[in-house]
């Protein structure tokens, strides 16, 4: 009889003690003073589901910790736009964590920035930051003055070249038989007559180097064509400061080089998997007929049917322009030939 009571006592102790113990353990290991949320996001190749969860809701001002894990191959984690967060690689079996406080309501995107599969560019997830004062507010429509300007002008952003626009001077292909030299252009630029519109950064943003070359040629008829090309190469690469170029190079290598190639030859390891061959920025004949604002629009909006993903949800307009600046570097920078 006594033993039976003892047995019942033990069973009751287990039944009550276990939940209580778990509860106390939980209380001790989640510090009640910081109401911080921990969200674990599991990364897998997009064919196997991508990020899970891929949509997160947080309130503005709330601190959340995002913990990324990987289940198959190495992924790279970055969050944008404008946050400047790049957690680097997350290997299978390892975690990467970041604690964030979103001050402003809006939508942010976390994305994989290391080529991980043929569908790598689909690997994205969103963080919806809700304004606590107005939780049901719809996101405001997105305005991009540069793209709106292009649409107004009637430029076909999907076209492979902007040279077929009306009034655009046609290039003489033979002029572009040797790479341009930015350094020589820099030296020469001081001694040339530079037309006022050509000296204007805004003008260069919306015109092709060929248009600039035609202007320069009219004003400096005695200078040889290869020298003029060097000056144009210098002018189109001079707008972006070196530290921005450095940032853009790093971003380009992580996000663009897998298709477009590290040197911009359009020959990255994934180049044969895309619907259309990636554009070669190193081909400066192509770049001479291209406009900065069109490149900007192509990066931000993506390419219809080309498999070029949109980067408008990952980059701020300023960051996109830095990237465009790096594309001009790829086109004109001196390469050993």
């Amino acid at each position, binding site marked *: 009889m006594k033993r039976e009571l003892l047995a019942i006592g033990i069973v009751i102790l287990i039944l009550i003690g276990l939940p209580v113990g778990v509860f106390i353990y939980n209380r001790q290991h989640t510090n009640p003073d910081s109401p911080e949320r921990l969200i674990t996001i599991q990364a897998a190749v997009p064919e196997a589901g991508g990020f899970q969860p891929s949509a997160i809701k947080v309130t503005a001002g709330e601190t959340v910790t995002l913990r990324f894990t990987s289940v*198959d*191959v*190495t992924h*790279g984690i970055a969050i944008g736009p404008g946050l400047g967060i790049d957690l680097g*690689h997350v*290997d*299978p*079996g390892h975690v990467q964590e970041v604690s964030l406080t979103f001050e402003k309501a809006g939508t942010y995107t976390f994305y994989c920035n*290391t*080529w*991980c*599969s043929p569908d790598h560019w689909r690997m994205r997830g969103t963080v919806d930051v809700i304004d606590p004062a107005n939780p049901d507010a719809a996101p405001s429509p997105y305005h991009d003055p540069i793209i709106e300007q292009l649409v107004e002008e009637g430029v076909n952003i999907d076209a492979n070249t902007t040279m077929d626009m009306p009034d655009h001077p046609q290039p003489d292909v033979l002029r572009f038989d040797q790479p341009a030299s930015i350094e020589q252009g820099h030296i020469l630029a001081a001694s040339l007559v530079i037309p006022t519109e050509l000296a204007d950064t805004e003008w260069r943003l919306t015109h092709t180097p060929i248009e600039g070359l035609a202007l320069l040629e009219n004003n400096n008829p005695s200078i040889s064509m290869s020298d003029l090309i060097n000056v144009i190469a210098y002018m189109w690469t001079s707008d972006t400061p070196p530290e921005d170029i450095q940032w853009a190079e790093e971003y380009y*290598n*992580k996000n*663009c*080089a*897998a*298709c477009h*190639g*590290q040197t911009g030859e359009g020959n*990255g*390891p*994934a180049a044969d998997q895309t619907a259309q061959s990636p554009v070669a920025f190193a081909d400066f004949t192509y770049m001479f007929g291209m406009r900065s604002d069109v490149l900007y629009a192509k990066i931000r909006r993506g390419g219809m049917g080309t498999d070029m993903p949109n980067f408008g949800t990952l980059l701020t307009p300023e960051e996109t322009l830095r990237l465009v600046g790096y594309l001009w570097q790829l086109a004109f920078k001196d390469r050993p030939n």
Partner: protein
Amino acid sequence: MSRVQKSFAWMRQHWVILIGIILAIGVMTFPIPQITDPQTRTITLDARQFEFAPHRIHINKGDRVIIQFTASDVVHGFYLDGYGIQERVEPGITKQIEFVAEHTGKFRYRCSVSCGSLHPFMIGELVVGPNEPFWRAIAFVIVSVITLIAYQFFSKGTSYEHATLGTSPA
């Protein structure tokens, strides 16, 4: 017979063994001069699931090796046994690995970043030649075998028969 005389007599009887031992020590320690001039070798090494291309690299001792390391599908790694070199490569970004091949032999390089189900089998070989320990061992075995055969030939009817018949030579 004095001790010295005894050993001389032994030597006269077993001189083949003595020559064999001297030769064997010779092949194991003889310094081999560097036959080939050290070169700089640039190798393009591509990693993909789940193989290296090329999966075998032959170089000579003293060569300066520059590996242009690329990945074709996912992030891969490179770990070279014996040299302890480790590098990781992302698709699209070429990594350069430089080292001087100081140790001869056959070393394995393997993927050091978990890259999928068959990742443990992603292995290649770096052969740094001439493979001195290997050829010395071969020479040692050949010398030993020849010595034994010669010993049997020159001392026929003495030690061999006693050994097999189990009788004492006295």
